[in-house]
């Protein structure tokens, strides 16, 4: 847990986003499940947030972010291509967000 907190230090004035794969590269955990559980504790303690990002079929870029799975619609407008896309589980990514150090929320 200490290593995760060291690696995911808040940056001044800007939030930092990490995917699970990126955190795995930085932390080099013994197991991904243990890392996921530790990240879950950090999210629940309020030290970081998690969002669900819908990824574009066409560009693989982020289309929209949601705070919960319930908010994810079946169909979403892909602003990058101007087309509507049906959201499947394969289009969802969970992103961990570390707020900036001056974040007083």
């Amino acid at each position, binding site marked *: 847990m200490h290593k995760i907190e060291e690696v995911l230090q808040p940056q001044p004035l800007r939030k930092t986003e990490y995917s699970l794969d990126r955190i795995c590269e930085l932390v080099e955990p013994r197991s991904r499940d243990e890392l996921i559980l530790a*990240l879950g*504790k950090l999210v629940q303690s309020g030290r970081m947030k998690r969002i669900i990002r819908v990824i574009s079929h066409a560009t693989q870029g982020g289309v929209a972010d949601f705070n919960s799975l319930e908010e994810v619609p079946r169909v979403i407008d892909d602003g990058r291509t101007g087309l509507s896309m049906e959201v*499947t589980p394969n289009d969802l990514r969970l992103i961990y967000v570390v707020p900036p150090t001056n974040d007083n929320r």
Partner: protein
Amino acid sequence: MTTDDLKAEFNKIVASSLSLPPAKRLDYVLGELDKLPAEYREFLLQLVSTTVALADDRTSMKTTRNQIIISAICLIVGTFLAFYFKTPTGIQYLFIRGFFVLGVVGIAVAILVGTVNLKWSATKSLAVTATGGFALFILIYYLNPPQPPDLKSNPSQGNVQTNTP
């Protein structure tokens, strides 16, 4: 599997795990996720672990308990040896101090939350950077104990109690 199916699975796992005591949730969640297609397992585990307290503190509690026990033994051994050897030799002094510091650091690391970062220059050519328990070990080993007063050569000073009325 559609997104609606994923939502349904997620809601079912969250609702069921919340009805369980915290110590049993993780096993239940992992068991349920293993029934799902492998490509969704990790995503759902992330979602569930950030939604429900899957307190898997059993392993860490056991490790902490063992650490405290071993550290306490080191501390007791160090304290015993310190009083047993009135005038320890160099090697005895090294072991006594090592046991004592190991005991103190082990208990401190087990109980206290946070990390210690230490950048210490032993000599001009030797610098040590340490973190966590190792940093505490170096700190306590080299900064503690302070030089004791020379009680033998100057018996009139120090903790001499007199029973004068």
